[in-house]
């Protein structure tokens, strides 16, 4: 629950920029299907960095965590069950 210091912010920012470079770079290497997975994984990590440190979830109460993840969870429900239909069509 310790409050973030200036150093943390700088480190998080640096990490975000490195990840940006990584995602652009990897996009130009042909890896087949993993390209999509890697791009989405990097986006997930970047979002988590922003949410945990910049948006102070690290110092937040449990309920803020629950609410912060609820939106993404139900979005996955929407995406998942819709794809059950579209992906299993003949």
């Amino acid at each position, binding site marked *: 629950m310790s409050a973030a210091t200036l150093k943390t912010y700088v480190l998080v920012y640096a990490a975000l920029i490195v990840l940006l470079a990584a995602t652009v770079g990897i996009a130009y290497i042909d890896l087949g299907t993993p390209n999509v997975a890697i791009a989405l994984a990097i986006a997930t990590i970047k979002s988590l960095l922003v949410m945990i440190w910049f948006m102070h979830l690290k110092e937040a109460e449990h309920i803020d965590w629950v609410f912060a993840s609820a939106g993404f969870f139900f979005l996955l*429900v929407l995406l998942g*069950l819709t794809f*059950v*239909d579209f992906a*299993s069509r*003949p």
Partner: protein
Amino acid sequence: MTTITTAEGDAARDLPAVVVDPDENYLNTSYTVKSWLLTHDHKRVAILYLLGITLFFFLGGAAAVLMRLELLTPQADLTSHETYNKLFTLHGVIMVFFFIIPAVPGVLGNFLLPIMLGARDVAFPRLNLLGWYLFMIGGCFAIAAMVAGGVDTGWTFYTPYSTTYSNTHVIATALGAFISGFASVLTGLNFLVTTHRMRAPGMKWFRMPLFVWSMYGTAIIMVLGTPVISITILLLAAERVLGLGIFDPARGGDPVLFQHLFWFYSHPAVYIMILPAMGIISELLAAFSRKRIFGYGFVAFSSLSIAFLGFLVWGHHMFVSSQSVYAGLIFSLLSFFVAIPSAIKVFNWTATLYKGSISYDAPMLYALGFIGLFLIGGLTGVFLSTLGIDVHVHDTYFVVAHFHYIAVGGTVMAFLGGLHYWWPKITGRLYPEVWARVAALTVYLGFNLTFFPQFILGYMGMPRRYHVYPPEFQVLHVLSTAGASILGAGYLIPMVYFIWSLWYGKKAGPNPWNAKGLEWQTKSPPITRNFEETPIVTEEAYAYAD
């Protein structure tokens, strides 16, 4: 249940005392129109909502009356095809978006939630008022569309009919629903934050009244579901105006995707309608059998699980839509799971009556009636989750009857019961008990006569949204219309005596029902800040000892 003691902040008394008129309450602090239109008081916002939804209820009801009259005979006598289609669209849009969804949360939720928690107001009073304005503006869009010539897509707005083929005022109506969606979001947001942050000292989660639990579940659905319908409506409007191809199969779009997005909200919206009603019923049963609700924890958690599971079952509206067979199987299976928490509630309510001390006041008559009607509505929902049966009765009057048993037999009955129960608190006046019991029985009889024949019609194969129909269905339609006229009368009676009671009703004390709950421990009507002193809660809900 609670004892009101002075909170440990006596320092406040040293401040220059505001001279308080002992008769002052939230209604008589000011009489100006401005004081109402710019109010931050959740109780006044509730009254504003009450006026709004009453207006829309009678508007939607008028459309229903015209439809029922038209359906007396198999052929078209009263209206043209166009007019009939516009009538059922109007009825659906108004009743769903502007009556049932805001009714209980907007009126009883707004009035009671902060008081039941021991708070002075909701967390964001200005947003609360803004919500009412958005609701009314949205309603004005819908009414304007009607006045300008109406809309004929059905409240479901299915593409490509709504985007390409209908020549009516689709956009104005859709924008009406879009704007009022924000009102829903603001209500839900306020309820969630208020419940988390504004509980009085000692008001632990498992001391909260079940009405608050059900409002909490409702708020979750409002916050999670509404944005999806908002953006979907926006895409629909963009497609219609700009000629984009998002849902248009001729341009690579998929109309079935529209149905997925539409029902992702619109199925949980059914739980926005019924969860608050369940909360009211829990309050009424406890108060009029003078008992703690049997299995309080199970009833509380069933509200949350209904809110959660409600998001997983939307595809059961699409069993014959050409969605894949596997999707159909999964949605059917999940739909059965949502039946379980509803069943748990019904069993616990019934068990609550056991060894109670039951009185037959009008609110209790509504509550007992609710159990029967909700039972039928819920069980026929199980029929519709069952794949083989749904293929036959989908889009027939069976579905129409089912959702009216839930939304009207369930929610409207509960809303009326709740309105009677809390009327003395809201207005400070008692309603005439005899008339109220007569009205409750009239509504009950009229409702069943209107909608039970529609189950049979549906199984016989009568499709919904039919202006003319084969003659063999006529007898049941005539029965249904007869019931509707009784039902209509049943709704008008309370309207009359509620207004009458504002001037001539007996004055109510703080607690006319001798009930438990923080709302009965403050004056009737309450003061603007709800409580003279912040209450401190020391007992669980429904701590009846007699």
